């Protein structure tokens, strides 16, 4: 208990230092704010379901192409806050265009990476990030922030892939079939509709809906904290 409090304090101190180093703006505001506490109940928990489309899987070598996000307030997805941003990057999309549906032309019409990061930081302030296989999102956002603004972006996240493995294990033994944790498969397993498009916003919404079902399955309607989600 004492140890964990010590860690939290140290992390806060570090984040406060970064906040001072960051240029004024949404990223600095984000660093200066605190995410929802671990004891927050899921029924009150503000999250931001977010999906990044990237040129690859390595945050240091690959680039962000687009981001889609939608706020989740407690157990309700708020479509009014849905956004999709295309990043104007000096890279050739090449083959990945067939996957993401993002062409070079679309990228040319996008916004600068720094603007994109600031928009994300603003939307994420006071919220927990929600993503499917969240290390990609947290890793790319933090690495890009470090490159663009000189500070990393510490993010509190809930991972629907993790949650899915808990949901499946709770009634399907230990062995999961290959691919069982993929977003589309996870949704199909829980009776959610199939989404065709492979766009950042669609995936963010798909992830948010999946989360609503997972929380219901894991909590069984009883109170459940953020900490229990991150276990």
């Amino acid at each position: 208990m004492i140890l964990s409090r010590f860690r939290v304090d140290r992390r806060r101190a570090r984040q406060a230092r970064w906040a001072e180093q960051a240029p004024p703006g949404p990223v600095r505001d984000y660093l200066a704010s605190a995410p929802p506490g671990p004891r927050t109940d899921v029924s009150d928990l503000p999250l931001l379901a977010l999906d990044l489309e990237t040129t690859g899987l390595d945050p240091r070598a690959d680039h962000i192409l687009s981001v889609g996000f939608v706020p989740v307030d407690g157990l309700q997805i708020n479509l009014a806050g849905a956004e999709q941003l295309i990043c104007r990057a000096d890279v050739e999309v090449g083959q990945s265009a067939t996957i993401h549906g993002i062409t070079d032309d679309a990228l040319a019409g996008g916004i600068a990476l720094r603007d994109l990061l600031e928009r994300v930081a603003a939307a994420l302030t006071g919220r927990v990030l929600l993503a499917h296989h969240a290390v990609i999102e947290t890793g790319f956002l933090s690495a890009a922030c470090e490159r663009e603004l000189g500070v990393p972006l510490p993010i509190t996240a809930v991972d629907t892939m993790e949650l899915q493995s808990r949901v499946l294990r709770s009634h399907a033994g230990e062995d999961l079939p290959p691919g069982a944790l993929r977003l589309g498969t996870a949704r199909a397993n829980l009776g959610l509709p199939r989404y065709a498009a492979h766009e950042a916003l669609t995936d963010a919404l798909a992830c948010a809906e999946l989360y609503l079902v997972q929380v219901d399955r894991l909590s069984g309607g009883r109170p459940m904290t953020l900490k229990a989600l991150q276990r």
Partner: protein
Amino acid sequence: MADAEIPEVTDFLAEQAPFAAVPRSDLERLARRMTVRYARRGTLLMSVGRGNDEVFVVRSGAVQITDDSGTLVDRGGEGTAFGTTALGGQPSRFEVEAIEDTLLLVLPSAAFHELAAAHPVVGDFFSQQRATRLRHALQSMPHAQRRTAVLQTRLRDLVRREPITTTGDATVREAAQLMAREQVSSLLVVDGDRLTGIVTDRDLRTRVLAAGLDSSTPVSAMMTADPVTAGPDDIAMELILEMTSRNIHHMPVVGGAGGHAPLGMLTSTDLMRLERANPIHLVGDIAKADDLEALVALSQRLPRIIDQLVHEDATADGIGRIVTAVGDAVEQRLIHLAERELGPSPTAYAWVVLGSQARLEQGPGSDQDNALVISDDATPADAPWFEALARFVVDGLVACGYPRCPGDVMATNPQWRRPLREWKRTFAQWIDEPVPDAILRSAIFFDLRAVHGDEGLVEELQAQIRRSAPTGTRFLAHLARNAAANEPPLGFFRGFVLEREGAHKDTLDLKRGGFHAVVEVARVHALSRGLPQVSTSSRMAAAVGAGGLSEETAADLHDAFEFIRYVRLLHQAKQIRAAMPPDNFVAPSELSSFEKRHLRDAFHVVRSAQQTLLHSHPLGHVT
């Protein structure tokens, strides 16, 4: 940067029935006002008696909708929409349960109302289920309640006067004197409260006078003992068959505890009067009436005709037309009598009826509302003639059972007895410089119809209204607000009672937030599109043609209008029979559960039409 489209939601909505008709750009905006929620199987999404502020669309999964009696109403999967019935805190009649794990798209009521106002097809879709039930109710009524054509009338409803009775030991002379005094052709002879015989005119002639009996002979010696009788629940048709086959002209109706107490006497004349109740005869008789006295006597036949029609297979709309036809005939005859007395009119004029009579929707006990449009050629010297005309007709109408208008909208009021040019100025003022109070009082003038005189004068006035009203944005917005101000008494069905004070405490007002609200809604539709129609049903039909109302909404409103007015007529027929003045206030105990259920549906239809109207004529930037 523009708001992001949410393709998965927009695409989904575009495939669902009510939303498919909405342009994609509007759907995109709509999607952004929605939230997404999840409900596991077994979750109650709506409960009976609770209101809500949201409309739900099933994104995946399935729901089951049951009504307050537990009857399954609907069961639906993807695309099923519900929740509009309980918007604005109205108690839900339904219980909605997720019968599978269900993902829901949720739309706040404000967004829904805006959508329904912009795209009537959406509002229609959601009121269709309710309307379907209401229509079903109307269709089933001819069998359930309107079954009785004239000859199906129960005898208890034909007996119109207390039985005239005597006893067996009375003399023939006493019996004859009683018959003369009461102006009846027969007597019921009783022993205590038991019927023992009857005596008729013909008996006095054949059994007493022709047989040379003394006038002191006791009735018991010459009466028809133990006569054939009928029961109060027998129908007129049976009575006719019985009387025809036995060749008798008098039939005592008996009933009561022992089944022998005399309730009254029915004669062949009573049956003939059934035919005479035909309003066409009445209108013909009125047109021939030679003086006020005759008109007054004829007018007294109207309540009976209404009573009769209510029990025949007549619609409220049909009865409204008949009552109006009689009202018109009385008014026209009075004007004719006045002209005969006053001499020919000094200049052209039109006698105008307003409000319900103008709309062909006059009801029993309706006040009179009338006005005079006089030719601009009139001189001040002509004024006394028109004043005398107005007094003659208005007083005559009062004598014939049409009470004075409490708001003094009558031709006797100099304000409403004016040359055409002044009428034009008044209407222009109402439309172009609307004052909320004045609009409230002037609404009735926008339902006008000439019943006598130079119709061209009225047509000129109506043409001006048709031209200017559609552009009178503020006028229309105020009119729409008035139309929506009288909320249907939906709270009534939660056990609350609407009229809390005064003579009509603890009753339901069928007029104010009921059928009259439909009148007001139809009026706004007609005026805002410059339509010439005056009756509510024709206004709604024309509004459909002009694109202001969808066919479904118009059909729903028509049904609601008919049903509420029909319930009112049932109520008024009861009052007429009890010799009470007819009104619009129904006690809850008077209503059958059938009527209560469908009144509620009808009121919901009215409320939704009011709200849609309000949204399409916003006042926000107006006042």
